[in-house]
């Protein structure tokens, strides 16, 4: 356990492992790849949000014998996409529950003929009444899922909330809403599939979790594990959008490949990807909070509702994380969180960086400022009075055994941003300026890794082997820009005592690598990295024990020992299974105990300008201070924070999914707006490091943390700027107009 010892490679800004290929334009993304004899596939999708398929007619001007046509009837195994519940069909079979639901698949060698053919499929429906919002679903007049439209519900209780209200000096209520958000990876979803009776199914694709796809394909095809092979291609961004959706896409391509006897490529264009694939769950959170006369929290009663779309996919786990993050980084003796995920007839929502935490943290951090305003208290002071500290317990009665340094993070964030001086300045300037400025803060944690017993359930296996004079990292954890390849090879090189160049990644191919779990939940550094660290030390110990490798050695001596070992044993492999840190007890029924093995902590500060002529809010500058354990690579870590902040700013002010009849109508990049290089503010990033003993070299999770803070920090800053509260994101200029009074322009120029 050398988490506090000095390291040579871990902690250094070594260059991205696959960086050169990416910069030369040599990296091969799925659409760059051709397989011999390859056909193309396309999907015919529902144009109604809910109903029965009455008939499917094929236009007579098309020679259908040239095409492979696949419907639900062609599925050899189960017609469902295996995620958590098995409620989502691979292909709609007689009934549809959302617009753009896949009904039928076509393949042909010629992309143009394929498009013509898809346009020639005519489907008649009998429409059924759809449900489009949380409120409509809650009314339960129309049941569209299960017995009651509830995809999942949680109840978390600590203490006795109900008796807290009467004694409380203050009771503050608020309702906070977040909209859907699209990942907008610059590379759309895509895959290539091959099928043969001999080898079964092989899929190459842009994806995060090869073994998730593998598991889904087993069910769809009723094939044994060794007859399904999934290989990740270089992936151009994912953010959770390629966690579950690729299972559907791979199944589709593989079914077509099976039907036509050729490899089939299915790469979505932007319009299809935007309309038909997963997005972040919309949410509505209601807070009712009791405080004493000093502004200390007495009770929190929280109601969370998410919109899960037509099928459950990952709604239960998103709701779980939302539930667990909803009380914020505060001490409160009495807490109740009731969470429900509701079904609607919209494209199913799925994983997206943060996974329920951005929704929950938006609510609590906006609510804290509302409480402060209600009490006439400074929002900074309110937070300080209620912050968790070492030894305090959370809503699930998890004791904070690791250091909690929220005060220090807050101090640093305020100092770096010049928060107080700026606020004072803006108060003066705003009086006579058409542009009003304000500062806003958000404080939050993000639980690293899977909730509760999740990591035990995953039972990840990972390690290294030695092949071709290099150490190869054997993981199913994938690279999609966040730095997996770099940090895992850094860890192995450090732990063994090699140079960074001596370690490479094994191909992310289920035929080659073990299942180290999905690349999600900010677990790769902490959990998988730790497995690599252990496996590396394990190999060294083995070589020292078995073939006389010395206590200290050069890389040449190491590889020499490996060859001696290989001569004796045949292969040089070292794998390790997940071991839970001690004292992790989680009760899934009561929702209590150690919800996460570790937490990353952060404070964000936003400086926002609201132009009262155009009602536009823009972020002028942003500060993010965080504690994520050991920073494994400062360039990659900084990049994660900056990218997450930019996405969070998009979530707050720019990105709106417009649905009509349950179909996304702004499904083009010209109409779904993310910030450009001219819109992003300067983003300042600062790390405090407190190594976590059970993470690789002391690392905790980092990837999702930065997306949690920007939305509340920005909307708190808007309130500071204009004195009006906005509790719904995305906050668009049209929304600001609706609530602000006539703009205060500069006093008539004549008086200037």
């Amino acid at each position, binding site marked *: 356990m050398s988490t506090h010892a000095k390291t040579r490679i871990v902690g250094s800004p070594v260059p991205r492992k696959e960086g050169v290929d990416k910069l030369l334009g040599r990296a091969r993304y799925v659409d760059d790849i051709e397989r011999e004899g390859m056909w193309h596939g396309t999907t015919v999708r529902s144009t109604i949000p809910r109903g029965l398929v009455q008939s499917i007619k094929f236009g007579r001007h098309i020679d259908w014998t040239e095409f492979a046509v696949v419907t639900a009837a062609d599925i050899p195994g189960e017609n469902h996409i295996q995620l958590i519940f098995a409620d989502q069909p691979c292909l709609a079979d007689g009934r549809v529950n959302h617009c753009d639901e896949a009904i039928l698949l076509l393949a042909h060698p010629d992309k*143009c003929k394929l498009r013509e053919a898809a346009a020639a499929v005519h489907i008649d429906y009998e429409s059924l009444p759809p449900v489009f919002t949380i409120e409509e679903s809650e009314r339960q007049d129309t049941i569209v899922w299960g017995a009651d439209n509830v995809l999942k519900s949680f109840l978390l209780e600590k203490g006795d909330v109900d008796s807290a209200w009467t004694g409380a000096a203050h009771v503050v209520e608020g309702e906070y809403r977040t909209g859907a958000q699209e990942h907008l990876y610059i590379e759309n979803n895509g895959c290539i599939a091959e099928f043969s009776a001999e080898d079964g199914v092989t899929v190459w694709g842009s994806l995060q979790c090869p073994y998730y796809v593998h598991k889904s394909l087993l069910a769809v095809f009723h094939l044994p594990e060794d007859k399904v092979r999934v290989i990740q291609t270089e992936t151009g961004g994912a953010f959770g959008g390629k966690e579950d959706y690729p299972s559907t896409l791979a199944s589709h391509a593989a079914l077509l490949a099976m039907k036509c006897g050729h490899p089939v490529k299915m790469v979505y*264009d932007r319009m299809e990807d935007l309309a038909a694939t997963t997005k972040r769950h919309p949410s509505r959170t209601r807070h009712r909070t009791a405080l004493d006369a000093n502004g200390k929290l007495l009770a929190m009663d929280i109601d969370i509702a998410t919109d899960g779309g037509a099928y459950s996919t990952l709604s239960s786990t998103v709701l779980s994380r939302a539930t667990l993050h909803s009380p914020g980084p505060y001490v409160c003796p009495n807490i109740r969180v009731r969470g429900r995920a509701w079904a609607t007839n919209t494209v199913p929502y799925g994983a997206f960086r943060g996974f329920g935490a951005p929704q929950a943290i938006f609510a609590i951090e906006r609510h804290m400022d509302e409480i402060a305003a209600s009490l006439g208290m400074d929002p900074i002071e309110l937070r300080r009075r209620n912050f968790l500290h070492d030894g305090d317990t959370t809503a699930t009665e998890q004791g904070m055994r690791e250091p909690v340094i929220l005060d220090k993070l807050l101090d640093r964030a305020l100092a770096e941003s010049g928060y107080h001086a700026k606020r004072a300045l803006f108060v003066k300037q705003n009086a006579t300026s058409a542009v009003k400025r304000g500062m806003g803060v958000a404080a939050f944690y993000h639980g690293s890794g899977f909730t509760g017993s999740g990591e035990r359930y995953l039972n990840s296996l990972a390690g290294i082997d030695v092949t071709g004079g290099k150490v190869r990292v054997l993981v199913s954890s994938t690279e999609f820009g966040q730095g997996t390849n770099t940090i895992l090879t850094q860890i192995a090189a450090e732990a063994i005592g090699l140079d960074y160049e001596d370690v490479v990644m094994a191909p992310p191919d289920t035929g080659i690598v073990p299942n180290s779990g999905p690349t999600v939940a900010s677990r790769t550094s902490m959990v998988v990295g730790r497995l690599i660290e252990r496996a590396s030390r394990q190999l060294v110990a083995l070589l020292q024990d078995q073939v006389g490798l010395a206590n200290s050695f050069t890389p040449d001596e190491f590889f020499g020992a490996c060859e001696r070992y290989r001569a004796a044993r045949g292969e040089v492999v070292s794998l390790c299974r997940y071991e839970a840190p001690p004292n992790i007890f989680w009760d899934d029924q009561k929702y209590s105990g150690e919800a996460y093995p570790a937490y990353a902590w952060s404070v964000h500060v936003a400086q926002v300008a609201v132009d009262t*002529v155009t009602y536009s809010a823009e972020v002028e500058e942003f500060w993010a201070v965080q504690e994520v354990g050991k920073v494994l690579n400062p360039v990659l870590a900084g990049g994660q924070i900056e990218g997450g902040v930019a996405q969070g700013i998009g979530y707050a002010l720019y990105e709106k999914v417009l649905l009509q009849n349950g179909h996304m*109508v*702004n499904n083009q990049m010209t109409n779904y*707006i993310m910030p*450009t290089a*001219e819109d992003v503010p300067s983003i300042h990033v600062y790390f405090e490091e407190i190594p976590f003993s059970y993470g690789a070299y002391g690392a905790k999770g980092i990837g999702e943390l930065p997306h949690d803070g920007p939305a509340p920090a920005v909307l708190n800053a808007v309130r500071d700027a204009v004195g009006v509260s906005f509790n719904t994101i995305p906050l668009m*200029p049209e929304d600001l107009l609706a609530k602000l009074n006539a703009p205060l322009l500069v006093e*008539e120029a004549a008086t200037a």
Partner: protein
Amino acid sequence: MRGNAEAHELVAPGSLDAVLHLLAEAPGAWTPIAGGTEVMVAHAAGRLAAKKLLSLWGIPDLRFIQAAAGSIAIGACTTFRELRASRVIATELPLLAKASAWIGSIANQSRATIGGNLVNGSPAADSSPALLVYDAEIELISVHGRRRLPYAHFHTGYKKNVLAPDELLYAIHFPTRFARHRQYLRKVGTRRAMAISKVALAAAALVDEGVVREVRFAAASLAAFPARLPQAEAVVCGRPITTETIQAARRALLDEVAPIDDIRSTAEYRKQVAANLLEEFLAELQGAGVPQ
């Protein structure tokens, strides 16, 4: 890519004469394409109805900026990058230079042409408000000859214009008499770059001893096509700028425009922001006191 490249004919006759003859041979059959920044988007979306396309790209007779005494002529296939780079445009028609910098991105500006922008006829067209405020005239050409008319008369409805089936937009002519005018142009979009405008206002006013002698307001995205704001102009013209005039102009604008709700914004937002932009300009005039 939802379009079928094989289903469209694209020819490049290479000279203005050859283009005009093709248009005359089969009036209405050919759709001109300049830089393609609109046509190719439709093509990729599988929505390009035009089967016969006539390339104007690179024809020297259509790509020019000519300054003469008292006027500037701009060829229809001049790109926005060229307009931005032109010293004479920057000096004489600064609002056009400003608008040119707002078209899409640098990559769009190197291909998008002013003629394409006008003929495409979006109500949100970036260059139109400046043209209206500068009293631009457009010159149309065919085998039968040329005709000129005020740009303000070019659009007749949503994406409808006065071009005859055998006619081509040839040039845009500007008088260069705005050196003493206070000028203003502001575009409000969804973000700072690569944004289709929700509303844009151009203004030019000649102020003499505190009284407005000449004024023009023009807006994008407030009607079926970019247009002047005659009611607001009437309120201001011939008057000094006072709080009353400003508020009256504001009311006149709100009264005369009828924007719509669409995928990008709302009618209410467009109206209120347009009125704010107008107020912003008039407040500048008031503050300036004397003309530039």
